[in-house]
């Protein structure tokens, strides 16, 4: 047993980290957050050129054929810098859905384009408030194609295609929809994290191709969510570490009553708690990375554990980072807000804490 990333993976981490520090400072995040640009196109182009979008795609489909461990390394680094790019939608969700459930034809068509970054994918499940899988599915596929509305689709306004859950008769399936085709209207919406773009997608007779098995829509969503959960968790771990660093740096600099606030136990123990939660999330994410990379039967439990830990750590770290900053922390001019916004966005995107706590227990009961 060996519970560490390999030297090559750690070298990738260093390269990725150095690249992102140079190309994705907090001012880059601020630019996207305050502008109408949905994402940083220049940064995305460079990410594509480095092959990150191709990481886990097999070579036969134009990918690099690396393991998911490399993708976890990249995810952590992207999380650290709160990157304003559609990586999670396109890589963790859409690419995975095509990889796992696509027909040979679908894989042969989409994966090479995803790998080379010439298309961006997104994943559309929600139609109303609450847990998508337990709400009624209003989007439906009939003779005229797919109709209905998906809401809060991350990167829905810029993606080229979407993986959409929709009903056909009594059963719900996943469909692949070309968003540049007819019968698709995109309505950009304001969100709590404008450094990532969202749209409501209104379909009226859009062309839709079945992805995977008819009637298996929500089961497939669950499988893709399990896989994505590990990668989201690594982004959350990366973000938590940034929040801890910011909080620590500020606490060392800021004086009150003649000494740095970092010397008061209220701050010391707060930062220790961020460290503890971040370390637990990281260690659980190691296990998730292993389970994902080996397609282990433990993946559902490992994914849920990493996800719950990631949500909790990132929320706590970013909220308490602001708290450590005091008044400055909640001003628009400081950077604390980017992490706090992203923490919430990542927490909601593929199902919230409560949903994943329940999944964790279900997996634990299965394992028992």
């Amino acid at each position, binding site marked *: 047993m060996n519970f560490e990333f390999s030297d090559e993976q750690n070298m990738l981490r260093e390269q990725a980290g150095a690249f992102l520090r140079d190309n994705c400072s907090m001012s880059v995040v601020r630019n996207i957050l305050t502008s109408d640009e949905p994402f940083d196109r220049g940064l995305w182009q460079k990410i594509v050129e480095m092959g990150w979008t191709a990481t886990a795609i097999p070579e036969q489909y134009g990918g690099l054929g690396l393991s998911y461990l490399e993708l976890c390394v990249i995810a952590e680094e992207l999380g650290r810098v709160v990157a304003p790019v559609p990586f999670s939608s396109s890589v963790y969700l859409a690419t995975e859905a095509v990889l796992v459930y696509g027909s040979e034809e679908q894989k042969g068509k989409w994966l090479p384009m995803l790998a080379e970054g010439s298309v961006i994918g997104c994943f559309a499940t929600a139609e109303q408030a609450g847990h998508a899988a337990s709400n009624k599915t209003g989007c439906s596929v009939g003779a005229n194609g797919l109709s209905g509305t998906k809401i809060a689709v991350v990167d829905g306004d810029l993606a080229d295609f979407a993986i959409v859950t929709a009903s056909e008769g009594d059963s719900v399936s996943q469909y692949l929809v070309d968003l540049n085709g007819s019968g698709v209207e995109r309505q950009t*919406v304001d969100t709590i994290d404008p450094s990532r773009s969202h749209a409501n997608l209104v379909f009226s007779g859009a062309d839709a191709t079945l992805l995977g098995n008819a009637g298996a829509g929500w089961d497939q969503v669950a499988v893709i969510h399990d896989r994505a959960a590990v990668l989201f968790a690594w982004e959350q771990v990366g973000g938590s570490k940034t929040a801890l660093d910011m909080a620590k740096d500020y606490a060392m600099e800021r004086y009150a*009553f003649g000494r740095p606030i970092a010397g*008061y136990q209220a701050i010391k123990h707060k930062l220790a708690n961020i460290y503890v939660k971040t370390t637990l999330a990281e260690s659980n994410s190691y296990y998730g990375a292993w389970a994902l990379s080996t397609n282990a039967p433990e993946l559902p439990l490992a994914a849920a554990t990493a996800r719950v830990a990631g949500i909790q750590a990132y929320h706590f770290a970013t909220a308490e980072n602001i708290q450590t900053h005091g008044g400055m922390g909640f001003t628009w001019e400081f950077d604390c807000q980017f992490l706090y916004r992203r923490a919430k966005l990542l927490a909601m995107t593929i199902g919230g804490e409560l949903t994943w706590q329940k999944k964790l227990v279900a997996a634990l009961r299965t394992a028992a």
Partner: protein
Amino acid sequence: MDFNDTAAEAEFRAEVSTWLEANVPAEKEFAGMTPLERAKFWQKRKYDAGWACLRWPKEFGGRDASVVEQVIFNEEEAKHDVEPAVFAIGHGMCGPTMIAWATDEQNRRYMPKIASGEEVWCQLFSEPAGGSDLAALRTSAVRDGDDWIVNGQKIWTSGAQHSDYGILVVRTDPTVPKHQGLSYFFLDMKSPGVEVKPIKQISGDAGFNEVYFTDVRIPDAQRLGAVGQGWQVALTTLMNERASIGGGGSGRGIVNCTRLVELFEKVNLDGSAAIEDGAVQAKLADWYVKEAGLKFVGYRSMSAMSRGDVPGPENSIGKLVAAPMRQEMSTFALDLLEGAGAIWDKELSEAAGLYQMGYMAAPGGRIAGGTDEIMANIIAERVLGLPQDVRLDKGIPFTEVPTSASS
């Protein structure tokens, strides 16, 4: 112990209720007004009828009313959609400080206009380098004949942009330990050299300001308390800050248990209303315990005040409990909304974006007016009598206190 009104209270409540029913402006009376104009319009109407600042002496624009009467008025007014927040600082903090420290002549001049809403006041205490260490302020005032010349910067000043007057603490002697070198003034916010800049918060709001002072002249007659006595005067202001009763937060614009019950009854979780879920119930119950507990702490405090007791530091628990709770509530509500929770839009979001705003405003709530950590310290030191933190700045001339790693 009786939760119900006494006969006299019930009579007073009926009087208030009747008057409000007849006099709260219809929406069309407000037509074309800015929020500030609306607030002033309504305040003036209350003042003219003797319903402003009820507890103040009549000669200063009040009604000489009891605490309970003030609370009853507040409760009844809260049933109408009228927004008096703009006067909170002036009525809650500046007015009582003036009554305690200004001359009768000054009070007869200023208080009625505070009460009527004609003049808005703000509080100029916090500074960038101060934060939790309020008394570490650096804005200086130097005596020049009958005036003082003020230079420096204040921060976190609510409502400075539309204030006519402000209360101000400044350093008049930097060579003595920090609490001893302060003096307290009120000033005309239109004085030359006063510049107000709004601070944008992460919630998008800009309720706070920075206020810069460049050679601002303040007449010595506007000093409250002796030179060097500024900290004692400031304590009067801060004590009144605590006197605000309640903490229940029943307004429609606030995340509270009532709103959460509505949400949880509505949102689907695993095929049922979320409120059927055990985890949702446990959270809601814990929050209700806090929300109700704070409400009753307020009632007890009111009972004590109506007996003549001064509200003590135990009221610090309101903010310490409520602020982190609001953050938890919003965080949890958004989680429950899942994907839809990301959308922050008056039209599209659940409850018009209440929970998104709650999430983004909550960090400020845990900091403004004293951080969670300072509030816990206040309870530990002033309620429980535990020792102060070790103060490395104690007894040291203000100029010699370290303020950064390099100092």
